[in-house]
């Protein structure tokens, strides 16, 4: 094989598999060699079972040989963030709390991938319980940005983004509660899509903040991202908020050159690094030159998004993480006395510092005497932010901003300042608060570090986001980029 298989897109790999010039076993063997050469440096994976991977690959090759191939993902490896259940594989959320757990069941997305013939390929590192923006909060290991190993890959889906940028796997799954797919995608120069709330089932996703959490696809190109999205999106009665796609969600959106693009007023101002602003402005000018209608839009409550998010998300997290009591699964303290002492000791030993901080914060904003001042006001602010976004999106097709204000920072640089880390998500949080689809598309570099722009659309308008991304990607050289390692 002339081309190194780890450099190829999922779509190209699928074509070769379909043509019979490649087997899934040969592909997986090549990726395992790549894993052995690179993963120790990057730290994207926390677990990879070579024997299981090759068994899945052989089964895929046998299906194809028997004329029972299951579609474009047949035989293609998809790596999975360690908060999404795959039967028989570890499910730890990169936390000591769940360290020994092996999932006894498949998530809905794992079922969908198996039904599509994909190889469920290993577990990806993350901030503990998806709480963080740098993957430094993993209790397992650090993950480093493949473009600069002294820097963070973003988070919380840092392993998912770094694995793509390092050529460790062609496709990955992340989860996104406030930007956890899009922010690491931007920092690692890959595509990451947070779908509309309700498009993809969360059955089998370990809950962080249930009114915000979504599973989404990550890839090195728009085409690959779309391939994975199409496999995942479907209604599922086991997630009571999941309705799946509408008729228009996944179908081509028509002429991307006729899209109306809104630029939120003031979003390219304070706090945005000049190189990031320049790359995003160049993208805006590209779309203008293509014939897209560019207009400025007002989102006057945008400054409320970060405090609103951190009240709502921590409130929900403090409730969701109440289930970790050392009784049914996960860590149980050896110093157990009474049941309450056992629960308290198990939680104190099992959770890391950021998780404890957020549980305390969420407990406070829900506590008697403070819930009205914090939680209820945050819900009212959320309603206002959502209304402003929906009003803006009534006049334009997509909103374009940077994904992250600055390029990837150095490991440890913000570790002692949680508030500064929370501000990493300033552009991505509103889409979660409003339940809107959003995508990060690579659009340039700041020095050697990738920069992405961010598109937000109306509910179930994923096809428009992908069409806009495809138009940009086709004219620029950022698809399929991988760091030299």
């Amino acid at each position, binding site marked *: 094989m002339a081309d190194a298989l780890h450099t190829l897109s999922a779509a190209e790999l699928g074509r070769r598999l379909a043509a019979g010039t490649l087997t899934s076993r040969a592909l997986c063997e090549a990726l395992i060699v790549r894993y052995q050469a690179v993963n120790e440096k990057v730290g994207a994976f926390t677990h990879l079972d070579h024997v299981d991977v090759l068994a899945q690959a052989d089964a895929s090759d046998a299906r194809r040989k028997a004329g029972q191939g299951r579609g474009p993902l047949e035989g293609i490896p998809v790596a999975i963030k360690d908060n999404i259940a795959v039967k028989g594989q570890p499910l730890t959320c990169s936390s000591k709390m769940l360290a020994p757990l092996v999932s006894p069941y498949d998530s809905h997305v794992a079922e969908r991938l198996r039904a599509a013939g994909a190889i469920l390929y290993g577990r990806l590192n993350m901030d503990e319980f998806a709480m963080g923006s740098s993957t430094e909060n993993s209790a397992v290991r650090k993950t480093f940005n493949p473009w600069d190993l002294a820097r963070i890959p973003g988070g919380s889906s840092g392993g998912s983004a770094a694995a793509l940028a390092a050529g460790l796997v062609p496709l990955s799954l992340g989860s996104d509660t406030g930007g956890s797919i899009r922010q690491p995608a931007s920092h690692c120069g890959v595509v990451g899509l947070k779908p509309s709330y309700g498009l993809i089932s969360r059955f089998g996703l370990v809950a962080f903040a249930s009114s915000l959490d979504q599973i989404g696809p990550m890839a090195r190109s728009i085409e690959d991202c779309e391939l994975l999205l199409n496999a995942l999106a479907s209604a599922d009665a086991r997630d009571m908020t999941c309705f799946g796609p509408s008729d228009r969600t996944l179908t081509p959106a028509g002429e991307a050159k006729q899209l109306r693009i809104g630029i939120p007023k003031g979003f390219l101002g304070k706090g945005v690094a000049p190189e990031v602003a320049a790359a995003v402005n160049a993208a805006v000018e590209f779309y203008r030159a293509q014939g897209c209608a560019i207009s400025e839009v007002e989102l006057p409550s945008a400054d*409320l998004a970060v405090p609103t998010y951190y*009240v709502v998300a921590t409130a929900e997290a403090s409730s969701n993480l109440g289930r970790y009591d050392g*009784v049914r699964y996960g860590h149980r303290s050896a110093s157990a006395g009474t049941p309450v*002492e056992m629960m308290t000791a198990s*939680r104190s030993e099992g959770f890391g510092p950021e998780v404890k901080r957020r549980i305390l914060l969420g407990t406070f904003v829900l*506590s008697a005497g403070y819930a009205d001042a914090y939680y209820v006001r945050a819900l*009212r602010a959320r*309603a206002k932010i959502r209304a402003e976004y929906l009003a803006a999106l009534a006049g334009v097709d997509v909103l374009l901003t940077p994904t992250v204000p600055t390029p990837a920072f150095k490991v440890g640089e913000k570790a002692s300042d949680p508030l500064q880390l929370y501000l990493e998500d300033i552009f991505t949080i509103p889409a979660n608060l409003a339940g809107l689809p959003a995508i990060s598309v690579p659009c340039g570099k700041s020095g050697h570090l990738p920069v992405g722009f961010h598109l937000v659309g109306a509910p179930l308008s994923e096809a428009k986001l992908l069409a806009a991304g495809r138009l940009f990607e086709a004219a620029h050289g950022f698809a399929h980029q991988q760091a030299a390692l």
Partner: protein
Amino acid sequence: MAEGFDIDHLAKLARLSLTAEEKALYASQLNQILGHFQALADADLPATIDDARVVDESALRSDEPGPVLGAEAVTRIAPASRDGQISVPRVVDDES
């Protein structure tokens, strides 16, 4: 708005045991974060929270038995089990 939280009370509510150093650190950081939330107190906000929902309705399943994990699968992932049941510290006192 950010005044008055009691880190010991919060830790008790959250079932967390904190060292003195942790209490001092979290109290300081939570005060800083809650200061940032002041924007919420100052904002002119709608009276209702109805529009905060991101889906208009939720679909309830029919109330019928469905597939569940069996006792063997459940006890296999439990920290301690005996005779097909999860073991926990004694929750009631001896008869007195």
